[in-house]
């Protein structure tokens, strides 16, 4: 058992690094281009800021980190390595408090997890991966196919149910998702399940009607168990830009988001928006998705992520 986790760890680290390779290498090379030991001046700080902007850190955080690099170092000679280390340290400072694992409270039976997010962010796939993970930990998992809007979303979740051995509660396409959540939670209670994962349809956060529908899902869940949902996870796509701020805001207001999951970090996308989100909302980041297979959903660690963003460590 220990062996497998030992071999798995570098694997996910490598995956994250390769996912962030473009980020790191672009930051790395961009920084190297101008800081092969030269004087730190206004122009250099501007360039550092630009580099961070390109990684989706947003205008405020980029400006702040660039400024932090300048503190006490103005007019001194500085190398690319130094800059990267400082950037990584600053990023880690922001991310460290939000890198928290998702704790399943065994006293809650079932522990209800509601997945929310915009269309195509990867909710259903993340549920499948979480189901596999929880099952492997010896928990009894149940899935609720709450995406009753998208064609074949129910079928997609059923495939995951078969793969992980978790029963799937589903209705028909177009049926009421709140009603389904009610049925599923009741069933999970009767069946003494440890964890219930509820899928929801993807919705854009500015659609009032769809957000009202989500509010209703939460309300109905509370009718069965007033303490539920015990975790509401907002799934964010790594390619998303500054719009993620608006997503966190709106979904938190409607559904009471308790934590974030970032998917698709295996692409060229940089995920730097997590830094901006951490600074503004301080919501825990539980998992990052770095690939298509089940073990590619990994706990989020601030130091690794920060290093990968700044390009201080190739990870090998």
């Amino acid at each position: 058992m220990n062996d497998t986790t030992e071999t798995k760890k570098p694997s996910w680290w490598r995956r994250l690094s390769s996912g962030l390779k473009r980020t790191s290498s672009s930051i790395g090379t961009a920084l190297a281009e101008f800081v092969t030991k030269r004087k730190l001046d206004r122009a250099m700080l501007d360039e550092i800021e630009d580099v961070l902007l390109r990684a989706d850190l947003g205008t405020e955080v980029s400006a702040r980190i660039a400024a932090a690099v300048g503190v006490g170092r103005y007019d001194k000679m500085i190398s690319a390595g130094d800059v990267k280390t400082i950037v990584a340290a600053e990023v880690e400072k922001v991310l460290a408090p939000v890198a928290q694992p998702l704790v399943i409270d065994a006293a809650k039976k079932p522990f209800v997890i509601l997945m929310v997010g915009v269309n195509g962010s990867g909710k259903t796939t993340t549920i499948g991966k979480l189901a596999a993970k929880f099952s492997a930990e010896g928990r009894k998992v149940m899935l609720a196919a709450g995406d009753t809007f998208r064609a074949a979303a129910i079928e997609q979740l059923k495939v995951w149910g078969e793969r992980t051995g978790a029963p799937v509660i589903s209705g028909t396409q177009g049926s009421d998702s709140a009603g389904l959540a009610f049925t599923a939670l009741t069933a999970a209670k009767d069946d003494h399940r440890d964890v219930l994962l509820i899928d929801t349809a993807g919705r854009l956060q500015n659609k009032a009607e769809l957000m009202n529908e989500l509010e209703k899902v939460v309300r109905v869940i509370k009718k069965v168990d007033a303490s539920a949902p015990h975790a509401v996870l907002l799934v964010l796509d790594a390619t998303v830009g500054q719009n993620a701020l608006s997503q966190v805001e709106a979904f938190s207001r409607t559904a009471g988001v308790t934590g974030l999951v970032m998917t698709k970090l295996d692409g060229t996308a940089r995920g730097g928006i997590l830094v901006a989100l951490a600074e503004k909302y301080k919501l825990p980041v539980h998992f990052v998705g770095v690939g298509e297979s089940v073990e590619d959903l990994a706990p989020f660690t601030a130091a690794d992520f920060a290093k990968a963003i700044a390009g201080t460590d190739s990870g090998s």
Partner: protein
Amino acid sequence: MFDNLSEKLGGILNRLTRRGSLTEADVDAAMREVRRALLEADVSLEVVKSFTDKVREQAIGATVVKSVTPGQMVVKIVHDELVATLGSDAQIIDLNAVPPVPIMMVGLQGSGKTTTTAKLARRLTQRDKRRVLMASLDVYRPAAMEQLAILGRDLEIDTLPIVEGQQPAQIARRAIEAAKLGGYDVVLLDTAGRTTLDDEMMAEAAEIKAVASPHEVLLVADSLTGQDAVNLARAFDTQVGLTGIVLTRVDGDGRGGAALSMRAVTGKPIKLMGTGEKTDALEDFHPSRIAGRILGMGDVVSLVEKAASHLDAEKAAAVAEKMRKGQFDLSDMREQLLQMTKMGGIGGLMGLMPGIAKMKSQIAASRIDDKVLNRQIAIIDSMTRQERKNPDILKASRKKRIAAGAGLKVEEVNKLLKMHRNMADMMKAVGRGKGGPMAGLAQAMGFGGGMPSPEQIKAMQEQQAQGGGLPELPKDLPPSLRGGLPKLPGLTGLSGKPTLPGLGGFPGFGKKK
């Protein structure tokens, strides 16, 4: 999606327009703010830089300083530069090839390829009268092929039968064969989502392309994408070769920076945009109109076009005639409400109105949604014919009955009646002028007679049926476009508070506190 950017740019440029003369420092300060606004809108840094450089260069030139209203000149330069960045002309899907014309869809996971494929198929079938075959080449994501099959079944569009165990390239070959044998005009190939770093998957996309030799290769990209949009578009373009881009989730509240970026770095046109969850929510991408939207000038042309494709020209003419005579009864109002719901409801229409960005958030806050329209229709449905013709006879007992019939309260019946009175009054006033039902809208917006009459709408419908879009902005339509930032004529004219043009005293709209 462009609302936030419009608000920001609008504010910055407004400050400029108010000034009598501009110094170089003024322009510099404004450009710094524009840069920030664009970055916050997820426009990629390299595009932002070249954009602000170009605008600055022109703005500091002699023409601006000498012009009477330098601020407005700058606005015009920003507008023109936006259009240039977005691509000057609208480009549509090209079907000029020997049928079956293959169209291949590529993109990241979750960008909306399958939904877009179905939307495009529906449009080609219903609007362009083509026979379309859809094929899913996604053998990876669970139930991806079923998703397309279900969409096809719902839309009554054929999909290639699923054969287990085939590779994407094999399926592509089978799809082309089937399309040839079946006499289809177009075959849409929906490929699996892939990241550009996955060499195997990118090679697969290239292989599919080699097998199918598609006439169009469309990158389906999420308009909420951040700075990565440029890498993404560039990588797909160099590794697979694109002919165009489809932007999805344009109805979100993203600021649309991805649109600017991807067009700028690839030079490939944005051909379509997805504007909603339903399969008919797909629109052509018109750069000049989008630039107008970004600057908060509204998209009046799209509004009119939308009206043209949904309005029943004859009914519209009948209503117009009644209006001229000042006989606008509740049945007519019901007709109007119904047409509003057909045209995409309140939300759909609002996005196209000039200067509405700020009001939009108020409306969202007041929770007016399309249910209101349906309820109002229900109230009118609960009336007798006599009552609809002559609302004056409605007294307490009748109102009670109507409220019960619609499942609502008497207050809501009163609200509707008040709204009808306001509308009737306004229309009487407008009806004395010339023009069709849209004239009220036009007048309220200060566009004079720029709005089409029913006859013109009918002509437009014919034009649309032939597959052609509308001509670009009619010259006399938005004078504000040439003059500079919209002064929002009419919108704020009445009481200093925004009112919805042409819709009169819609409850909760104009009078939102």
